[in-house]
């Protein structure tokens, strides 16, 4: 972007609204399309009730972020999606939230099945009650073509979602995913905040990603209040985030083994995942890392003696983890299944803007910890997990590489923190900069987490936008199923393991 009109910004640093020029819509549109055409990524596109649109662009290899805005005169504009598939779900979302119609959107359906935030302005002119999952699903017609509908309630202990498979015999031509069953109004609840519950809302965007989202929220507040978090506290946050990653990656690799019918790793990992969660519980009392973070620092610090105790527990758990997971790579039956299923074309992965594990499994070198470092990661980088094939095996392999990298980080951090004194606890309330904007990114175990806040004249949230990595990646799962056997859906699904509640908010 040579002649750039968007404002450059940094992860977790606030900008005054007046420093982000309000572009005319055609300029705003051109800027996004040009950026995406030249390989940059649309990390966020959102609107507010005053018909303002905000966009965040990321150039990951260059470690750069830009933010831009425009204001519409009318609640409609020409859709970006025909030229930029990355915009497709963002445009459906802003239509649903604010009744703004992206004209000629090729896949114009609700996202979460809720009423518009603006009374009397509905993008689909709906007047009656809104029923979840009731929409015009794409249908393949033809002899011997059949449709399989699954959900919202699934067969296991799983969150709700509705899946429609268009099949010809065993082969899936197309999968459409309708979500929104977990929609509980988190973004709307954030308005006017920060409130006493705001941190809790962030922690429960996706309960298995309490630390990823909780940290994104804290970093956003710290950016808007101009507060620096002490380096040791940042390191403790890093420990917690990597423990969260280890627990979930271990669980996922076990579940993948289970779906491939390889029971040793499946049963070992189910237990070891709990061991990782129990380490997090030693930090703060909660296995999911609830109430560990606090804007400005930590609610409870990691004392040197606890760090010392955790060093030996880490060694034990890591030995078990390594032992359980390495079995996978020596089992021909597992490798066969993993390599033959769930291929996503790396070109399509870029086009639709995949993030996190599925993106890195397509050879896309993208990780917030490396590209837009936050917390301790600039000083203590973690190795990037990468694979090239875009299939289930690659997504499993990326998780394994990331587990190894996280373990190295944790071992170093525990050792260092065993000899250093804790930071003072953050106290007092924070005054947020009025009329400002802040973008906060973290790398949760699923991928990039983005929180964006716009403050009003009194420093309250006028808009709070949350993008869970699942929001980018659900469409990737649909792509992975094309041409696959329907019986491979569980394996493919598990290789993504996306969040329903993180998507539904």
């Amino acid at each position, binding site marked *: 972007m040579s002649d750039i009109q968007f404002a450059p910004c940094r992860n977790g640093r606030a900008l005054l609204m007046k420093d982000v020029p309000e572009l005319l819509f055609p300029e705003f549109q051109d800027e996004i399309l040009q950026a995406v055409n030249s390989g940059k990524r649309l990390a966020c596109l959102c609107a507010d009730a005053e018909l303002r649109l905000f966009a965040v662009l990321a150039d990951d290899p260059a470690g750069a972020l830009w933010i831009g805005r425009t204001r519409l005169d009318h609640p409609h504009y020409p859709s970006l999606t025909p030229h930029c598939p990355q915009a497709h779900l963002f445009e459906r979302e802003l239509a649903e939230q604010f009744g703004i119609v992206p004209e000629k959107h090729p896949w114009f359906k609700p996202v*979460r*099945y*809720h009423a518009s935030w603006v009374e009397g302005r509905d993008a689909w002119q709906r007047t009656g009650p809104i*029923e*979840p999952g009731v929409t015009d699903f794409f249908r393949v017609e033809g002899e011997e073509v059949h449709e399989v509908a699954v959900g919202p*309630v699934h*067969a*296991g*202990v*799983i*969150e*709700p979602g509705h899946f429609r498979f268009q099949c010809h015999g065993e082969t899936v031509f197309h999968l459409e995913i309708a979500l*929104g*069953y*977990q*929609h*509980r*109004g988190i973004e*709307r*609840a954030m308005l006017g905040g920060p409130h*006493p*519950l705001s941190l*809790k*809302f962030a*922690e*429960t965007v*996706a*309960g*298995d990603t*309490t630390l990823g989202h909780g940290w994104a929220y804290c970093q956003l507040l710290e950016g808007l209040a101009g507060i620096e978090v002490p380096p040791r506290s940042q390191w403790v946050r890093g420990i917690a985030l990597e423990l969260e990653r280890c627990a979930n990656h271990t669980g996922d690799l076990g579940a993948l083994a289970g779906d491939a019918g390889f029971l*040793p790793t499946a*049963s*070992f990992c*189910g*237990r070891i*995942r*709990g061991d990782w*969660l*129990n380490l997090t*519980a*030693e*930090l*703060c*009392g*909660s*296995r*999911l890392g*609830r*109430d560990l973070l606090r804007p400005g620092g930590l*609610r*409870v610090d990691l004392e040197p003696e*606890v760090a010392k105790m955790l060093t030996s527990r880490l060694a034990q758990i890591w030995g*078990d983890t390594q*032992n*359980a997971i390495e*079995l996978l790579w*020596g089992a021909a039956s597992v490798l066969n299944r993993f390599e033959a299923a769930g291929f996503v074309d790396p070109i399509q992965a870029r086009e639709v803007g995949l993030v996190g594990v599925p993106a890195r499994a397509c050879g896309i070198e993208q990780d917030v910890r490396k590209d837009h470092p936050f917390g301790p990661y600039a000083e203590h980088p973690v190795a990037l997990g990468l694979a090239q094939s875009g299939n289930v095996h690659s997504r499993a392999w990326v998780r394994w590489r990331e587990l190894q990298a996280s373990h190295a980080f944790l071992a170093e951090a525990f050792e260092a923190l065993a000899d250093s004194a804790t930071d003072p606890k953050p106290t007092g309330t924070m005054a947020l900069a009025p009329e400002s904007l802040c973008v906060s990114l973290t790398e949760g175990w699923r991928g990039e987490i983005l929180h964006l806040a716009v403050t009003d004249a009194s420093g309250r949230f006028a808009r709070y936008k949350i993008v869970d990595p699942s929001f980018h990646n659900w469409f990737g799962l649909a792509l992975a199923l094309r041409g696959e056997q329907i019986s491979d859906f569980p394996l493919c699904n598990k290789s993504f393991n996306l*969040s*329903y*509640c993180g998507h539904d908010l």
Partner: protein
Amino acid sequence: MIHILLSRWRQGHRTLPYPKTIPVLPGRFRGLPRIDAQACPEVCHVCAEACPTEAIELGPTGPDIDLGKCLFCDLCVEACPKGAIAFTRDHRLSTRDRDHLVLAPDQELQLAEKLNAELMRLFGRSLKIRVVSAGGCNGCEVDVNVLGTLAWDLGRFGIQYVAAPRHADAVLVCGPVTANMELALRKTYAAVPDPKIVIAVGACAISGGPYYRQEEQLGGASSVVPVDLFIPGCPPHPLTILDGLLRLLGKLEQEGRITSVKA
């Protein structure tokens, strides 16, 4: 094959000895909250004001804590100028009655009683559970799911999660019941053969949890179906969930579990 056998040897037998002994809980575990009425100053609302979910209300003998609303977040403990509130290490929190979850200072929690004789005859040795995730954050599901792993091995108590409501004796609900899940929950409940029981797991399923003010949700499972067992927490520890299930089935006394837990 030899690698698998060697791993099996290394990983060993890891099913917890519970309920013969209580597993070691983390040092900072927050279980049953206790308010010390002696230490609690009169006409002080600080804890109630600090509580983000209005779980604390001033009753006749001091602050009452509603465990069904409590997120176990520690804000009241930090706020209390006299240190009169503390979270004990007692993991046992489940009740049969919603009202029993509201605890006055120094009041004992009336833990869940076992099912009546007829239901015990039917379910006492085999309880099949259909889990419905109805809003919420997937945190409770994580700790419900974990009971199925070999560490907890739920099956040894005759309890099993099943894939269809037709195979189930009970519906276990997580989440505040979003408007978008109401119909699915009603249909699942209707599809379970009579007699049936409902278990609400977590603050969301009991009271709406952190989302209690949101109009996108209904305020918990009992807004839609009659609830027989309430298991508080955000999310409850797996041990808390298992304790609730086993109490419902009257298993704890039978298997000689210790009757009191040190605070």
